[in-house]
């Protein structure tokens, strides 16, 4: 399975979002039933992932954080190889050495999933420097959260990218949560994009739960980067509907806030809009959902059938 390119039809976006949701549900179940470790879902953030990734071309590259399953799947990752990786199997994208928290997929242009918050920001400038110096056209998309925006590397990265005119699309998925701490407890400002503007970067803030709005903003951002060669900062306002990792009872979450964002579930919002406008019918919706769950089922069977790596793999790949 290679890089997925999008023509922008709403059904295409919805299909990608359902695939992510079905994958996350399976990952949660695998954790609950089999103790598969390291599950950090991005349930509720599917629109931000699909909206941005659907705006990318085949030459573009991605660096992301520990909530990367949406970015990978939207980019065309094989759910079977992802689940195999999460389960520590040989046929995972990284031979089972990454687990869920560090998946990279060179064939898809996904250079890094960083579990060190801000690690993706630290490396994005270098990846973009390669693009610039080697004359490659692709834009480097760097996904991170509001938590990473509190790291020093956020500021170092933005400053250097602006200074060196590096082709980076910074995508802050502002999901309001930094592990177990609400964003309100960590910063005075409500908006992270203002920080990027301070470094001389063009910015946009978008409803991160609306995939069509995110896609439109991302297309504009990518076009701006390709035309100017300068970085661009896109803030997607969204919400982490599940806990920091699995299991997490979310007892620390304000129930009213959670309910308000659940009512803005990005999949439900898009479905309602498409149905209301007559752009899709209920049968097609049902078929689309069923196909997503079928693909995750097939992927899970592939992962279960994949053997664990041989013990000899313990010390391979350390050095070239």
């Amino acid at each position, binding site marked *: 399975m290679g890089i997925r390119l999008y023509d922008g039809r709403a059904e295409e976006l919805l299909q990608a979002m359902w695939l992510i949701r079905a994958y996350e549900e399976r990952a949660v179940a695998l954790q609950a039933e089999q103790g598969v470790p390291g599950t950090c879902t991005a349930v509720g953030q599917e629109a931000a992932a699909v909206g941005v990734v659907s705006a990318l071309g085949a030459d573009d590259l991605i660096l992301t954080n520990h909530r990367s399953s949406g970015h990978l799947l939207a980019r065309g990752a094989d759910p079977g190889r992802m689940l195999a990786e999460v389960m520590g199997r040989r046929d995972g994208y990284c*031979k089972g050495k990454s687990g869920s928290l560090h998946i990279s997929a060179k064939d898809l242009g996904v*250079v890094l999933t960083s579990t*060190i918050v801000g690690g993706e920001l630290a490396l994005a400038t*270098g990846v973009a420097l390669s693009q610039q110096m080697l004359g490659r056209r692709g834009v480097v998309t760097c996904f991170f959260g509001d938590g990473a925006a509190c790291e020093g*590397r956020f500021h170092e990265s933005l400053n250097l990218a602006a200074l060196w005119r590096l082709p980076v699309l910074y995508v802050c998925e502002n999901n309001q949560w930094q592990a177990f701490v609400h964003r309100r407890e960590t910063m005075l400002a409500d908006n992270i994009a203002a920080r990027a503007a301070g470094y001389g970067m063009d910015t946009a803030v978008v409803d991160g739960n609306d995939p069509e709005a995110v896609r439109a903003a991302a297309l504009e951002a990518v076009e701006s980067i390709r035309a100017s060669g300068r970085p661009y900062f896109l803030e997607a306002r969204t919400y982490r509907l599940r806990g920091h990792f699995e299991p997490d009872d979310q007892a620390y979450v304000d129930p009213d806030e959670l309910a308000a964002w659940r009512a803005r579930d990005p999949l439900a919002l898009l479905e309602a809009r498409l149905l209301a406008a007559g752009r899709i019918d209920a049968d097609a919706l049902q078929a689309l959902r069923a196909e997503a769950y079928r693909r995750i089922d097939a992927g899970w069977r592939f992962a279960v059938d994949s053997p664990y790596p041989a013990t000899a793999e313990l010390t391979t790949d350390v*050095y070239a």
Partner: protein
Amino acid sequence: MTRITVMDAIDQALAEEMAHDPAVLLMGEGVATKRRALVEAFGPARVRNTPLAEGIIAGTAVGAAATGLRPVVDLLFAPFLCYAMDELVNSAGKLRYLSGGQFDFPLVAIAMTGAGWGVGAQHNHNLEAWFAHAPGLKVAMPSTAADFKGMLKSAIRDPDPVLFFVDIALAYTDGEVPAGEHLVPLGRAARRREGRDVTLISYAKTVPVCEQAAELLAAQGISAEVLDLRSIKPLDEAAILASVRRTGRAVVVHEASRTCGVGAEVAALIGEHAWDALRAPVLRVTGPDAPAPASPPLEQAYVPQPAAVAAAAQRLMAGAEAAACV
């Protein structure tokens, strides 16, 4: 052969490798200011001043290395590496493995280290053992101008991340250096002096200390071999063991603090693999477990001196009991 300083040998290596491979670039705080000749030869895109921010300098190098460039970053002084530890240890050292071998990280991080300038502990801290302990990294710490050139060239061509330490006390010493192509492989020790009775094992500025100690010992009829490790990782285990098997005695000497230092690793290696050849315990002569002071006499006292190395060797010659009374 021409006689040049270590700093000039480093410049030669950089210029030759930048000419050899267009993917090589140099980044760091002041590299374009200090190395005008490289800027003129290769242009400002390949010799870049950076903001004073070690973390993003190293992170940029790691990202660039993963995607086709061969960055060399000058992070100035070894203690500043602490600001770049995440990028060097968590990214450069681990991401090849975590990616299942999908990405390579050919980069070199240069830093000066050690006593000699009286600049105190936030500029002077020998951190080589930290990086040797971190998986996925290589660590070079040469002692001669020729090796600085030959090993830096090898480090730049190496497919893995290399920490390249420049001992401040050696930076402006000179030595014979082959002109043109001169590659010294990483992971190979060099025998600086042959001897029969004891092996003095060291690297960086304490190699000449060991050579002076060997002279002192020779005057007393003790024949000391001097082994310059040159690379801390990979460590030339075969050379260490072969030498100790010949002499039956070893003193490991380094400026870095003793606890969990390179000396402990070398001593353990000898204990594990050459126990039968030992005629006395392995001794260490190292810097103390203390930050490096600025005061010149204290700074010099921090560094192992020839007389102390010679005294350790003499205790070994006197037998195991005397050796144990350190």
